[in-house]
């Protein structure tokens, strides 16, 4: 492909805006490897467009972040203490949100059949997001996830994107824990694309922590192992 600057500058503009895909993105990758490093004109153009795009952010109305944001950041800056346990953790590669509502529904112990966990369709994610937008909703981190609670709601949601599929034969399990006491809520696995949208009929109020573990599917859930994700209840 030719390296004429008229077409390259158009690609640089799209690249600066993070809006290239397909063949254009591939061509930009090639140019960044083979042309731009040795081309002063292109380097200056890319730098200038980057500066312009940085300034574009200032066109958005500034907003005061919720107080929970700096609190969660300060907490996450601390070294994390991990407990040894029988169930291995897995890393969650992308954002996962746990939406927790407060309420008073009695739980039945169980997994993905008649228990408190219901797997929802992906398009039902809006239900969870709507809950998170309610007055009285608060958010907090759950490891790589974010937990959101709202007063006066008798269920909570768990949803995420690009959640790693657990190793063969293993599943995620959801627990409420207080000291030595615990309650098993059920198990789940993400869709092949990593999507998880769960509605959980449970009340985490009164429990100290909400846990997600990774455990063998064949093993009867007995007690929670080391949490993959954890939040104070």
């Amino acid at each position, binding site marked *: 492909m030719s390296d004429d600057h008229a077409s390259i*500058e*158009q*690609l640089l*503009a*799209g690249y*600066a*805006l*993070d*809006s*290239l*895909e*397909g063949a*254009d993105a591939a061509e930009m990758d090639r140019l960044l490897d083979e042309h731009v490093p040795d081309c002063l004109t292109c380097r200056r153009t890319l*730098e*200038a*467009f*980057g*500066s*312009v*795009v*940085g*300034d*574009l*952010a*200032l*066109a*958005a*109305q*500034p*907003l*005061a*972040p*919720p107080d*929970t*944001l*700096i609190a*969660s*950041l300060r907490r*996450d*800056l601390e070294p994390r203490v991990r407990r040894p346990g029988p169930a291995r953790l897995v890393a969650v590669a*992308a*954002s996962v*949100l746990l939406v927790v509502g407060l309420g008073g529904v009695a739980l039945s112990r169980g997994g993905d059949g008649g228990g408190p966990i219901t797997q929802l369709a*992906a*398009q039902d*994610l*809006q239900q969870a*997001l709507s809950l*998170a*937008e309610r007055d009285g*909703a608060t*958010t907090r*981190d759950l490891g790589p996830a*974010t937990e*959101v609670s709202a007063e006066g709601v008798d269920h909570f949601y768990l949803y995420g*994107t*690009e959640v790693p599929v657990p190793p063969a034969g293993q599943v995620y399990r959801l627990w409420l824990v207080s000291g030595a006491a615990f309650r098993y809520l059920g198990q789940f696995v993400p869709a092949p*694309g990593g*999507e998880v*949208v769960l509605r959980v009929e449970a009340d985490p109020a009164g429990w100290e922590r909400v846990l997600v573990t990774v455990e063998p599917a064949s093993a009867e859930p007995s007690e929670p192992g080391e949490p993959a994700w954890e939040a104070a209840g």
Partner: protein
Amino acid sequence: MREEDRDDVALHRRLVAGDRGAFDELYRRWAGTAYGLAYRVTGQQVLAQDVVHDAFMALWRAPEAFDEARGAFRSFFLALVHHRAVDTVRRETRLRDRSARAANLEPLTGEDPAEGVVDEAFLVVRRQQVREALADLSDDQRQVLEMAYFGGKTQVQIAEELGIPLGTVKTRTFAALRKLRAALEETE
């Protein structure tokens, strides 16, 4: 280098050394702008918070990613926020209908959007310069720019939505950035 950029660079150097106070100060200076940008792109407060949290954590964990020789800290950090916000929007698109999102260009209902945000003086001026420069673009140029930057859409998606050739989107985008570059460099 402008004085405000020098302040950011000084804070960044302290951040590299692990200074938590520098982190707090950078948060104070940029969290409002970052959160406003993330909200406008994602249209959801909870997603915006997630984006800004991740961006600040990335800054803390790998402050060396910013090279002061390659531009202002502001450009680096807000590009980081923008990139994560766009990634979030594109992931969310797989899960739900984007039309259900809050309108991107509207402020939060029932709130004063700027409440609690104390802009540095230079930011007040720069915001106005950017908005004026955007207003000077043609409607066509501003449309593709906002769809790409604030809408998180690719040029292919923009062409499909507007029913125009991809080449036209490229031309308008380039012309828009070139015009903004000239206007904003003039006001530096």
